[in-house]
């Protein structure tokens, strides 16, 4: 076989394809994919609504509470605590938004080189443990601290006896932070070898694409 015969053999695939395709199996795969995409979009929308309603509700409630404490001339510590919890909820919204929007959308029109660079940037980001963990910790901690502070303000201002004892608040907060950091680190340790392998392969591929022969 010479080079021209090789080309001829190769191009014969266009008239006599390499395979026959089972259209029913492909259609079934497509239907499954459509159902998966629809399900994902539904879950995404629900999550989005839940997040906005919850955080906005808490922020509005805290804002109202600040107004009540000021109007009634209650001690400044209540206003201050409610203000801090409002700030915590705002921080939570920010962390929540950042964690949701961190994956850049795939552009199908990308060239191979662009696609490899995009994937590499994504893997590099996922491997940057510090930024990754901080966002999760901020999101989780701000929510708990904000809620605890607000409930403390409400209880104290209404002279409702605190059954849990406010002395437990710092312990609860520290415990929560430790739990969140621990689980984030554990998850990261599990994912790291796979991500590193992928990063190495992507870098090799990029180097192969960049290197002139």
């Amino acid at each position, binding site marked *: 076989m010479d080079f021209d015969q090789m*080309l001829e*053999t190769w191009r014969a695939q266009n008239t006599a394809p*390499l395979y026959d395709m089972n259209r029913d199996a492909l259609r079934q795969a*497509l239907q499954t994919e459509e159902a998966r995409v629809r399900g994902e979009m539904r879950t995404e929308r629900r999550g989005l609504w839940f997040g906005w309603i919850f955080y906005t509700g808490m922020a509005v409630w805290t804002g109202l509470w600040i107004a009540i404490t000021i109007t009634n001339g209650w001690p400044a510590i209540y206003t201050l605590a409610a203000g801090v919890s409002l700030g915590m909820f705002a921080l939570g919204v920010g962390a929540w938004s950042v964690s949701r929007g961190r994956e850049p959308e795939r552009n199908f029109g*990308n060239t*191979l080189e662009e696609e490899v660079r995009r994937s590499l940037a994504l893997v590099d980001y996922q491997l940057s443990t510090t930024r990754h963990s901080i966002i999760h910790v901020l999101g989780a901690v701000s929510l708990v601290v904000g809620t605890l502070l607000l409930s403390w303000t409400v209880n104290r201002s209404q002279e409702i006896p605190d059954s849990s004892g406010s002395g437990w608040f710092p312990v609860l907060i520290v415990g929560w932070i430790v739990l969140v950091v621990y689980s984030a680190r554990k998850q990261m340790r599990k994912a790291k070898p796979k991500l590193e392998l992928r990063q190495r392969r992507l870098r090799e591929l990029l180097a192969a694409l960049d290197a002139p022969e």
Partner: protein
Amino acid sequence: MQEAERNRIFESWIDAHKAILFKVARVYGATHSDREDLFQEIALQVWHSVEAYRGDCAPTTWIYRVALNTALAWRRKERRHGQGRQDLEAATGLLIAPPGRDPRLDWIYERIAELDEANRSLALLMLDGLSYREMSQILGLGESNVGMRINRIKAVLAAQLAKEERDGL
């Protein structure tokens, strides 16, 4: 875009360009079940991409881009493919190999499989008769770089052909 319209475009693309999908799946899949898996993944990505297609390039170029990007990403998936799976057990029946295939075609695929991942894409595009400009648009490489690489691939294939000629292919 309506779902029916998207499905109609997808069907027409698959009808017209299924050979591209077969070739990419054959080049990047090590076993038959891997090829079925990859073919399905590429077909699904092509379906996803229909909405993003703006007609800036020919559908052939677009489908090559989607297919090659998917194949490269698929190969990076922690090597779950072709490992610990029984080929016949895992086969889904999506691709049916017709009997009596030209053995020279298998030889060509084996030679392509010996190239590195980037050059495999180039070899496939070269054999399909795409111009340097089209290859450059698909892979994101400069045309001169494409030219140099293609010359190298041709030299490798020519050397293999000469060797096989001597050994009596």
